[in-house]
């Protein structure tokens, strides 16, 4: 990765040049610069619609004056301008006595599985072929039609430095695939979709296509089921917005008393078998990096251990406020945004069950929901976007207009089954999870 290393050094030079413009007797400052390249292709109904390439370089400057934060971003050609804007914004804002300091220099661990030479050298024709292949793979049956599919690859390099001596450089690659299909038979239709993303060029096109095709076929002829309290089995895709979102609390929300888990550190909030870890160093993880968006070393943080709430997610500001160490959870989408608290890679410990639905006499399987818990109350009330009835241990018909509702504190204590197999979606690695006594209302 010589080319990437050269880019890192060039970006660090720009950061140092920006910091040199900041009067450190008055301000603390931080510079974050990135350089990214991406290639993608989109298909519509199995035919190429567009291909894209992007090249972007930019810098984000954070300046603090007595805790008042000013931020500005610009392209690398306008670094001086960005520094000037950030300083004037910091001067205009109000002081914050809770701000102690930006992060201090520390050594970083080496991360693995985050760079793939193959991805860095792919051309648009190869990427387009991936999108075509995944579309082909989804047509497992004559009834399945492709709506669209896409493939993308990207590589980026970044550098961060602050006026307290923090210096970090990193590069990474990523590849992603998605496919959206519909199955038709007479008046019946059903939707199917699947995504996959990896830091390496190892995406299984056949598996992604097959999953989407099977989902579309099994989603045809949805029917309501009789309402009542019953076991609900959450697919790894549904675990993210329901369980992982509920158990992953930012220290900012906790400190502002906005979370239903405020003040519950050390308490039993879930069943004994439930453990969730935030792991910024996970080999090959989508969110893996040696350091976070403030240059704090990435780490492995146990959030819930055998049912006991152990930690919130901290950045340096919220950590300083409590006189503790940051967990390295400052994150930013790109150079346009200042850092904010966000999970890295989440891992929910697996269980022992080889089949989490076999003991369910009457219940539902939730493949996807677009809803999230109300984090201030812990209430979860959501529509099953894609799901199936379970009868006598078998997955049956698709569900029509079905809602599930439960308080998340009850839900975490009513987990009664975790699968042995785990799946990774969007940075969350999780087993399939079964929960008892959830209100299910179905109609239509």
């Amino acid at each position, binding site marked *: 990765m010589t080319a990437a290393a050269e880019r890192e050094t060039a970006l660090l030079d720009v950061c140092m040049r920006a910091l040199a413009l900041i009067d450190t007797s008055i301000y603390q400052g931080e510079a974050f610069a990135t350089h990214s390249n991406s290639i993608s292709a989109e298909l519509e109904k199995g035919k190429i619609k567009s291909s894209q390439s992007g090249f972007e370089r930019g810098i984000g400057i954070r300046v603090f004056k007595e805790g008042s934060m000013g931020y500005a971003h610009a392209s690398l*050609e306008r670094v001086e301008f960005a520094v000037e804007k*950030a300083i004037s914004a910091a001067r205009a804002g109000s002081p914050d006595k809770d701000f102690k300091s930006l992060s201090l220099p520390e050594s970083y661990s080496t991360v693995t599985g985050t760079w793939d030479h193959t991805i860095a050298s792919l051309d648009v024709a190869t990427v387009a072929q991936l999108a075509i292949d995944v579309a082909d793979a989804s047509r497992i049956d004559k009834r399945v039609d492709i709506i669209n599919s896409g493939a993308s690859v990207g590589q980026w390099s970044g550098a961060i430095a602050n006026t307290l001596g923090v210096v970090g450089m990193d590069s990474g690659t990523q590849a992603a695939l998605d496919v959206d299909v519909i199955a038709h038979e007479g008046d019946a239709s059903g939707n199917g979709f699947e995504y996959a993303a990896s830091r390496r060029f190892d995406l299984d096109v056949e598996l992604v296509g097959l999953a989407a095709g099977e989902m579309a076929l099994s989603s045809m002829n949805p029917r309501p089921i009789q309402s009542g309290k019953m076991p609900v089995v959450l697919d790894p895709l549904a675990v993210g917005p329901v369980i992982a979102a509920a158990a992953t609390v930012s220290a900012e929300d906790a400190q502002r008393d906005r979370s239903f888990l405020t003040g519950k550190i050390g308490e039993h909030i879930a069943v004994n078998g439930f453990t969730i870890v935030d792991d910024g160093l996970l080999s090959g993880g989508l969110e893996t990096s040696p350091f976070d968006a403030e240059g704090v070393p990435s780490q492995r943080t146990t959030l819930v251990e055998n049912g006991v709430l152990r930690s919130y997610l901290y950045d340096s500001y919220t950590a300083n406020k409590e006189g503790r160490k940051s967990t390295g959870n400052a994150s930013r989408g790109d150079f346009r945004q200042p850092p904010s608290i966000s999970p890295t890679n989440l891992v929910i410990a697996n269980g022992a069950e080889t089949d989490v639905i076999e003991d369910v006499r009457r219940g539902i399987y939730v493949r996807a929901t677009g809803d999230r818990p109300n984090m201030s109350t812990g209430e979860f009330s959501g529509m099953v976007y894609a799901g199936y009835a379970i009868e006598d241990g078998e997955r049956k018909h698709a569900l029509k207009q079905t809602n599930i509702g439960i308080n998340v504190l009850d839900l975490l204590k009513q987990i009664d089954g975790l699968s042995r197999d785990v799946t990774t979606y969007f940075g969350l690695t999780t087993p399939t999870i079964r929960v008892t006594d959830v209100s299910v209302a179905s109609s239509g």
Partner: protein
Amino acid sequence: MQELSEKRADIEEALSKARERGAQFTDIRIESSEGTSISTKDGITKINSSNELGAGIRAFLEGAWGFAYTTQVDHQGLANCAESAVSLAKAVYERAEKFSIDVPVFENTVKPTVQRLPTRVSIADKLDYVLLQEQEAKKTDKRVSSTEIGYNDVVLHKIIANSEGTYIDETVVRSIARAMIFAKEGALRQSGYKARGDSKGFELFLDGAEIGRIAASQAVSLLDAKPAPSGEFEAVLDPSLSGVFAHEAFGHASEADAIISGTSILAGKLKQKIGSDAVTIVDDPSLQSYGYMAYDDEGIQTRRKVLMERGILQSYLTDLETGSRLGLGSNGSARAQRYDAPPIVRMSNTFFEPGDYSFEELLDGFSGIYFVGWQYGYTTPTTGMLTFKSREAYVVERGELRDHLRDAALSAMTLEVLHNISAIGKTLAFDPGTCGKGGQMTPNTTGGAYMRVSDVVVGGM
């Protein structure tokens, strides 16, 4: 901001370079933007200044688009970017569905008519407005526990030019402020929300614009609210929710890319009667509101589009590609989030035309659920199934408001709702919002009046 207008020669050269390399059609969008965003959470302020310059170039070849973007907006940067776009189209066009596009040509310069250009208002004045909203929210009630006020403005200067001769020089100004207020009593927590946004400058906030107090009152009032019942009910939607229905459930289905990809419930229904006589829905980018644009991101002059008139589906939203493929022509509905994304078919200001009823007349004799405000929601495009989570709701018995409800969700099928709208109120209200599609966010307005709908499934806890 003057610098963009001096780039015409570089643009013309990049366009001819693309033509020489084999593109059948090329367009260039250059954007220069300057903006401020301020957020304050419980008195802690964060101020973010943005300044961007970039260009996106599309090349079309026999049904395939190549798109490339760059932050190097000079003679060489634009030429390289144009070459990349053509190479991309050439690399894949053999596997594309073949079609040609028909491009109407426009040339114009559009200046904003704002009174207080945000770039000429000091950060201190903007901060004062934000802090005032925070104080007003805190003063509302002792139970207000946490406040979050956001403010954003942008002055966006664009050049949109293409190989057919279009050259649009357009400047758009937008401002928005949002309040998210939390209230707490014992272990109970609730939140309230209010936003104000328009394609205006800082004058938008000079008449008070009390978002903090309104959001705080909502949060506090919800502390006593009950969970919603579940079952099938008759419903009254407030203007926010009827506006979201016009956008989310109906509007997205009227986007022509969804018609072509076979993911719209409105495919094949043009000129058919699919809604009740009460229903007229319009998308109007030319309306001075948060989703305003005089020209779309393909340089097409925008106009008011009646999508449904008295229940009859009259029009889809089209861009150059979908308009050409469907034989309808573009009606100026192409938008891109920024220079680094290609334009796609989007809504702008989407709303129900008002009816004849007063709010009292709508509730007269009505028993069911009255829904207020939108938290979030989604629809399944291919079936039209929708789920909206309201901010608050009330049980109504024979016209009388009874229990106050929190977290009430409603779900229904879009095509059934269009038939089941029995009455629409006479006062139209608009809400600013942000719409996401294909990973691109755009500023939009939704609008509606109070509206009565039968057979809605209500879910709560």
